[in-house]
């Protein structure tokens, strides 16, 4: 078992790494927002207030495609449903109360959830993972959005730098330790199959949401066998 000092430094370093990786994508969100017809202020407000990448790209994408404000908003919120599901799991891991719940809620995103789960065996570690990742991504995502919006498309395509491969690789790396468990591997595999099978036929965002059904089925099937003893009831 590594010492807490070493582990703490590792968590903070990884959190900053995740922040830089997603921040780089924030550059493209800023550029795409302005290109999609939003002002710089509207683009930045989206990153500060909404702060959930998939929803933001969907909002701008639908608006840019002429989809209208209502369908843009509905799509964005539908994609945000994922964060509510993350919160269900995080609430018992983080034990947030009062103001911390209100502030922490805004930081409930893919990246902070994945980092929390990667460190769920230890209470200090998972709290640090959640807050450091959430704050690092929040700061870098918003700075990058502003820079991207100001620079417009002059920055070039993030795909040139392979960032569209870096993002899923980061999620996979964060999920990796969980996949040591055989049942978790089944859950992940079934989720992948469902999401990819639905991608050609369902609206954007639905395939990932639909994978939640796998978790429900796994919960009903395995019950307490899925519950990690050390990771529960910190609240």
């Amino acid at each position: 078992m590594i010492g807490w000092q070493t582990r703490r430094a590792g968590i903070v370093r990884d959190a900053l790494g995740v922040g830089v990786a997603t921040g780089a994508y924030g550059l493209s969100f800023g550029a795409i927002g302005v290109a999609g017809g939003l002002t710089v202020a509207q683009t930045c407000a989206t990153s500060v207030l909404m702060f959930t990448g998939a929803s933001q790209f969907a909002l701008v994408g639908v608006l840019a495609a002429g989809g209208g404000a209502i369908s843009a908003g509905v799509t964005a919120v539908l994609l945000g449903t994922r964060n509510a599901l993350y919160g269900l799991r995080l609430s018992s891991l983080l034990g947030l109360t009062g103001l911390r719940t209100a502030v922490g809620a805004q930081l409930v995103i893919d990246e902070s959830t994945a980092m929390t789960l990667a460190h769920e065996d230890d209470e200090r570690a998972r709290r640090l993972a959640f807050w450091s990742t959430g704050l690092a991504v929040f700061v870098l995502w918003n700075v990058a959005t502003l820079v991207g919006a100001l620079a417009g498309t002059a920055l070039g395509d993030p795909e040139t730098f392979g960032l569209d491969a870096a993002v899923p690789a980061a999620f996979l790396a964060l999920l990796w330790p969980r996949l040591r468990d055989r049942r978790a591997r089944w859950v992940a595999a079934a989720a992948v199959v469902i999401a990819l099978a639905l991608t050609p036929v369902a609206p954007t965002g639905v395939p990932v949401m639909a994978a939640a059904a796998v978790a429900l089925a796994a919960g009903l099937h395995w019950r307490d066998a899925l519950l990690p003893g050390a990771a529960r009831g910190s609240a």
Partner: protein
Amino acid sequence: MIWAAVIASAVGCYALKLLGLSVPSSVLDRDWVRASAVALPVALLAALTAVQTVGDAQRLVVDARLAGVAAGVVALLLRAPFLVVVGVAAATAALLRAVGAG
């Protein structure tokens, strides 16, 4: 209209985040509910990884992203640290694009 869409959907997204964190623990007291909540992020993150690797709007596309993520898997199997995994994935995809593949 754009401001209305931005603010309304931001409120909606925040409400969803808060809702998830605020569901009383008594709701989670049943074994199958807790087990499902444990499995949920695994399922959603796996699905997200897959869709981001080969999805392009409503199409499935094999391109440099898949090669990049595959290189990342190799790095993971070699027990590389997180940032190395991400770097290897990005560099692989970027390299393939630079030489005109994917």
